[in-house]
């Protein structure tokens, strides 16, 4: 409202009436009595209050128990069930477990004996951990040809996995794909297998003799 125009004298009745009408309208909006304090402001917005009001007119029945609370992710338990079935003693799991110091590590030489077929020996290049589908990649030689083979450690067709030779120093990476280069290729590991077999046989015969002597 222009203050100047209010105090400006006017001889016109129409203008005077207009002015008084305007002043009365303004006065109507002036508040002299203090308004009652608004109730503690609700933490909900208007839309939220509408939603709550709508729900309050209905009976909402309780939910049936949800599996999202008890088993939101059933996969680890299913994997554990399968592994328990396939590896009841836990020996296979222990052989590749990160928590055991005597586990097979990348860079060691392993020999896998399947149910049917010849044993395959090679350098352990990779361990792919995937629960029951955990698999190892060995690089060995088949008829003087370097070959890489994947084996699932929990497969029932894998009869035995033996550690033939342990790498003296820890490999500095988890996937030894550099072994594919001729410079680093370990080649044929039959000599290591032979040495392992000899030692094992010697140990076995020593045990047998001890048992026989103990029996006598």
């Amino acid at each position, binding site marked *: 409202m222009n203050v100047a125009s209010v105090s400006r004298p006017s001889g016109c009745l129409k203008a005077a009436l207009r002015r008084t009408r305007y002043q009365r309208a303004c006065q109507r909006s002036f508040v002299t009595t203090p308004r009652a304090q608004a109730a503690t402001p609700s933490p909900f917005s208007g839309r939220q209050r509408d*939603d709550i009001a709508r729900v309050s007119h*209905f009976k909402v029945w309780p939910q049936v128990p949800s599996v999202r609370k008890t088993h939101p992710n059933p996969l680890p338990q299913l994997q554990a069930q*399968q592994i328990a079935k396939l590896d009841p003693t836990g020996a296979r799991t222990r052989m590749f477990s990160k928590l055991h110091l005597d586990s097979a590590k990348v860079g060691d030489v392993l020999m896998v004996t399947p149910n049917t077929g010849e044993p395959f020996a090679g350098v352990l290049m990779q361990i792919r951990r995937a629960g029951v589908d955990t698999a190892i990649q060995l690089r060995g030689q088949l008829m003087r040809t370097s070959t890489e083979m994947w084996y699932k450690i929990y497969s029932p067709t894998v009869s035995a996995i033996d550690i033939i030779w342990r790498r003296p120093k820890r490999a500095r990476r988890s996937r030894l794909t550099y072994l594919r280069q001729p410079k680093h290729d370990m080649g044929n590991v039959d000599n290591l297998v032979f040495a392992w077999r000899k030692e094992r046989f010697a140990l076995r015969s020593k045990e047998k003799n001890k048992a026989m002597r103990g029996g006598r």
Partner: protein
Amino acid sequence: MPPRLPLRVALPRFHARHNAAATAIAIPARPCILLSHTPSRAVHNGWVTAPPRSKHARFNQPTAGVPAPTTGPAAALKRRERTTPLRTGVLATKKGMTAVYVGKNRIPCTVLQLDQVQVVANKTREKNGYWAVQVGRGSKDPRNVTAPQLGYYEAKGIAPKAELAEFMVRDEEGLLPVGLQLLPDWFQVGQYVDVKGNSRGMGFAGGMKRHGFKGQEASHGNSKNHRTIGSVGPSQGSGSRVFPGKKMPGRMGNESVTVQNLKVMAVDNELGTVLVSGPVPGPKGRTLKLQDSKKRKPPTQPHREKAVQALVERQPDHEEHLLAARLAHLEMKKQRQPDVGL
């Protein structure tokens, strides 16, 4: 459309087979509106209570000596009767994949989890023209549910569901009481199932991915057109245009895909899982429809009977609960709309 009964005849509100007890108790049925024999269809009234015109129901009925039509909903139901499953399916979530060893063989499996799966409603031939069971999954915050839906669930004694789907069944034997919770042991280990769901979305996919086009040469002078679609058709002779439906790049995936005849490998009520052999459409977290296979024999009758019995045994008071819910609904409705019905 099946022939509609005139409103003169008071339609039974609930399906008699499951609610023998309910009908014995006096429930205020929908008001029976009595109309004159010749409902006027006068447009000047603005509205009519007579049923919509359905000419096909009045004439050429088989009772007149005319053969039954081979087209139409009734004929379609009859045609598909043999391949419609006997019983309802469930809604499940794809959780991931594992493997199961059967003897020496490794079988990759998908893990599907059932979460708060309940029978919400039944569709009948009389009212809806087909037999089906409406199944709900999960739960929804009631503040995010509309008032009509809140009333819908209030009358059934069920908490609001996140998703609903219908499963067609062959006949009224496949209908289930409202409110029963379906668990993984609904399926028999060794039976075959069909899994239906939306596939993974591939976004805007090119011709090679979307339609298997072979693309063009990688070298030999090809410039910047290794994966393009090449020619889009003939020239002036075919109208100087591209034919409608020409295979071109575009949005791919996120559409309904059914994988049939998957074997159920394992069932676990505690974890809520069903293991099916093979892959299913969609990414992890997708909701899928799981039902008995259409092209294989259904699970054995002893199992089907045992499964329904198990459902009822787990919730022996389901009928009373439903009745209480209906009465509560009528009470609440009167409070919400005191002027309606006067």
